[in-house]
């Protein structure tokens, strides 16, 4: 089956399929069941196509698809490498899961404009795939902006004043940083090197003195210009984007948008600067510490959040900084850790968000303080939440353990021993702000916010459950299983990603 299309064809079709699906969704505006059916079919087809591409990359192929020549030396083209293949696989795979979840959530909460919602979603997938497969900085930039714009409509989905304000901050920061910082960085790269193709080993090495202040400036432009990576202090769009419906938060802000950002950081570090050049220049040290500070500060802020989604959002900021940290460590273990974190965090955070959404659908609760005793009513949801939390914290047997492990090794390799301490401290903070939620849900009485249950509750029965609809439970179940599976599949993942660090 996988041999039906060549990888090049599959790439084109994979980009075209969501667009076609979008058209179908638009036409099926009046028939919700057909519409959702189209969404699921499209997601499935896209995933299948991406799987073909992924498979070919695993076998060592590097398919290329040139599309347009926008300017001489400035073309719109795609080229695959393992990191992009991984990202595209995650994005398209989780689209299926998320579509299932969206159906449950959107119907459960009776949202308006569902057609527009699914259309924008499809568009965002195209943008994410484009980012994943971009062969040069310009293609990356184009799809980066496309992702911002298509998700803007999702963030402001509710259309009320609050949503618009959040959307404005979202768009303002993402657009602002990309135009004011990323674009000049890209142009500077073009001017310096005469091209912006992502090339193994980086392209700046020959054309720039590594100790020049330009390296530092350029790196700063990239790191802050890729606003989606949410490195502090330009993270504030992320919590503000939580006004969106939960599936959007789950998918786009745990997977597509933020991962597009850190993926970009990783790619710039690997293929524009080159890890060797970066570590020799010394410019990365500053950003290692900015990332480390982001990790700690965001975790600290997360602890103070009562709104569950906000807490998860700050947790995301913290976790994303792990990836930036990995990129900036600029050695093989750091890169490996960062890359793995892209996959692991996606599954873990997705689970958490979907559970949060399920809680909202079933009980309309958004504040952590209101969730005491809720575990009795929603044992499955909170059970899944627990698994997701463990993965984020980085405890075995969850996949989330591995990136932290590799990052610590990388930090040691880079001689940044303090970073190991930072990572450890962060894990402790994670334990506090994430595990407290299921503990509260399971062990506290519903109406007592202050301590453990004083009166023995009546024995729990299966029929006490008041869970969210089935379609809101199945997806987090899938991702939770995924986190566990990845713990055991890490060897394959390592092998797949090893070309990034110079391995075969």
């Amino acid at each position, binding site marked *: 089956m996988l041999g039906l299309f060549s990888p090049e064809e599959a790439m084109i079709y994979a980009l075209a399929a969501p667009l076609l699906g979008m058209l179908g969704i638009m036409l099926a505006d009046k028939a919700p069941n057909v519409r959702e059916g189209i969404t699921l079919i499209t997601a499935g087809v896209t995933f299948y196509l991406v799987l073909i591409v992924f498979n070919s990359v695993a076998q060592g192929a590097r398919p290329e698809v040139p599309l347009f*020549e*926008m*300017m001489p030396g400035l073309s719109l083209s795609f080229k695959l490498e393992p990191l992009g293949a991984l990202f595209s696989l995650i994005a398209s795979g989780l689209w299926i899961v998320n579509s299932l979840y969206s159906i449950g959530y959107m119907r459960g909460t009776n949202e308006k404009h569902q057609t527009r919602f699914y259309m924008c979603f499809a568009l965002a997938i195209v943008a994410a795939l484009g980012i994943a497969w971009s062969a040069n900085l310009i293609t990356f930039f184009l799809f980066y902006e496309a992702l911002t714009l298509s998700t803007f409509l999702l963030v402001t989905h509710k259309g009320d004043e609050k949503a618009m304000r959040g959307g404005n901050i979202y768009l303002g920061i993402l*657009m602002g940083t990309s135009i*004011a910082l990323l674009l*000049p960085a890209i142009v500077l790269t073009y001017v310096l090197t005469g091209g912006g193709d992502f090339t193994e080993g980086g392209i700046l090495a020959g054309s720039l003195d590594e100790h020049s202040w330009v390296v530092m400036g350029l790196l700063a432009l990239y790191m802050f210009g890729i606003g989606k990576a949410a490195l502090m202090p330009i993270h504030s769009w992320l919590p503000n984007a939580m006004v969106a419906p939960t599936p959007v938060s789950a998918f786009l802000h745990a997977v597509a948008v933020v991962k597009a950002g850190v993926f970009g950081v990783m790619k710039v570090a690997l293929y524009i600067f080159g890890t060797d050049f970066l570590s020799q220049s010394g410019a990365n040290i500053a950003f290692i510490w900015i990332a480390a500070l982001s990790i700690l500060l965001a975790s600290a802020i997360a602890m103070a959040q009562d709104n569950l989604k906000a807490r998860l959002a700050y947790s995301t900021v913290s976790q994303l900084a792990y990836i930036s940290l990995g990129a900036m460590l600029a050695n093989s273990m750091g890169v490996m850790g960062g890359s793995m974190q892209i996959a692991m965090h996606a599954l873990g955070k997705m689970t958490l968000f979907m559970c949060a959404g399920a809680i909202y659908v079933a009980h309309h609760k958004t504040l952590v303080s209101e969730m005491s005793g809720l575990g009795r009513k929603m044992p499955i949801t909170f059970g899944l939440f627990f698994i997701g939390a463990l993965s984020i914290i980085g405890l075995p047997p969850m996949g989330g353990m591995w990136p932290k492990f590799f990052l610590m090794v990388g930090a040691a390799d880079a001689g940044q021993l303090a970073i190991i301490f930072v990572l450890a401290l962060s894990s402790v903070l994670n334990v506090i702000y994430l595990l407290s939620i299921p503990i509260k849900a399971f062990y506290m009485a519903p109406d007592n916010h202050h301590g453990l249950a004083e009166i023995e509750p009546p024995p729990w029965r299966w029929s006490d459950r008041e869970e969210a609809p089935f379609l809101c439970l199945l997806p987090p179940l899938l991702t939770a299983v995924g986190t566990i599976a990845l713990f055991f599949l890490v060897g394959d993942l390592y092998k797949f990603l090893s070309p990034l660090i110079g391995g075969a």
Partner: protein
Amino acid sequence: MDFIAQLPVLPVVLPFVAAPLCLLLPAGRAPWVWATLVAWATFALSLILLEQVWINGTISYAMGGWSAPMGIAYRIDLTNGMVLALISFVAAVVFPYAGPSVRDEIAHKQTPAFYTALLLCFAGLIGVTITGDAFNVFVFLEISSLSTYVLVAMGAGRDRRALTAAFNYLVMGTIGATFFVIGLGLLYMATGTLNMIDLHERLVGQDNRVVKAAFAFIVTGLGLKLAMLPLHLWLPPAYSYAPSSITAFLAATATKVAVYIMLRFLYTVFGFDFPFLSVALDFFLILGVAGMFVASLAAMFQDDIKMMLAYSSVAQIGYMLLGISLGTVDGVAAGLLHLVNHAFMKAALFMAVGCVVLRLGSHQLSAFQGLAKRMPWTAWGMVIAAMSLAGIPGTAGFISKFALLQASFDKGGLTPTIAGFLIVLSSLLAVVYLMRVVRVMLQPLPESGPFTKPVVRPPLLMRVSLWVMVLANIYFGLQGGGLIALTRRAASILMGVDAGGAM
């Protein structure tokens, strides 16, 4: 008649002869159809001419058979060949659009005279573009300017402020023209010739007060015509109150031609060995940057969309001046590229606004509420054109902004680098003011106020014309290579005229 040999003069003779004939046509549709056909034919001629210039190099044509310093010569190189093709393309798209729009805004009886004025304006702009004679520039500039004043004033049927706007435009434009002609007089005093190439040859080595004063007068006069920053005040009201189709046409052509003439005088007539040039270029750099910011900031506070777009035009002229002021082939090429691309985006935007004006009778921001629901084709066309104006990748605006940035960084040195960052900063301002409109368009339909009644879609012809422009934005955003090669070559030919080659 040898078609190819006579080709250079045909694009201007055709509309020039067609204009008076148009006055005799019966009122109604006939003048419009006539003007449209003429515009299409002119566009075809311009394309053939551009192709000829691309293949055979610069073409000269002696008017009346009198050779250059004695008579008037046409001289078409890639730069003006390109501007010519641009103007006639805009006309070929906007004139069909004008039909339904003008029917609504201009009295039935006036249609023949109106289209006559439009054709004269068109012919004047083309004449300015392809001539190689400095005084001939003035003559045709006057034809186009006079008809422009009238066309702007025709907006009075909708909003009487058009009369005041046209009057201010007339006063400013006339001052500009006077300055320009004083400059020409001084140049003639210093050289005894009016032909551009001849002027350049005889200006070489002249560094006296006559030439300096001439330079200052010409630059100031043209600065008025192209709405350079402190001299821009006529533009926003004129564009805002003119009839919709006129705004679309003028915004995409008139200032572009003025920018081209400025380029022509700077690089062909005066040239690099003119010692005053570098001072002027520094001046342009400052004015360009100031224009980008002042006008963008002004645009942010406009509730009238046409006014907002007009201010944005002033800002975009700042970009072009910035490119020109770099004084490198890349810089000038980027300026030219932005000139072309900006014509596409502004034409599309003003055409979209025109559709709204036709159906809702207003170009206030409040009329745009819920437009995406009410008039989806218009609204989304406008969104794409706005994205192009903001420089979102995948659109023409991105390509020219990229080229401008590249040229500034490439020039090296602190000032151009800072200018590059200022470009991106000011385009952020563009994002802000355009986002305001887009947001309003995406909102649900208003429930109260004057714009609640349902509206019919704008006529198909208007939507098609609008989308031709929108697609041009996308096409040149994805396949900008040809255009870039064209502007590069045009710029190097334009600047290569200079013998010293002070690059």
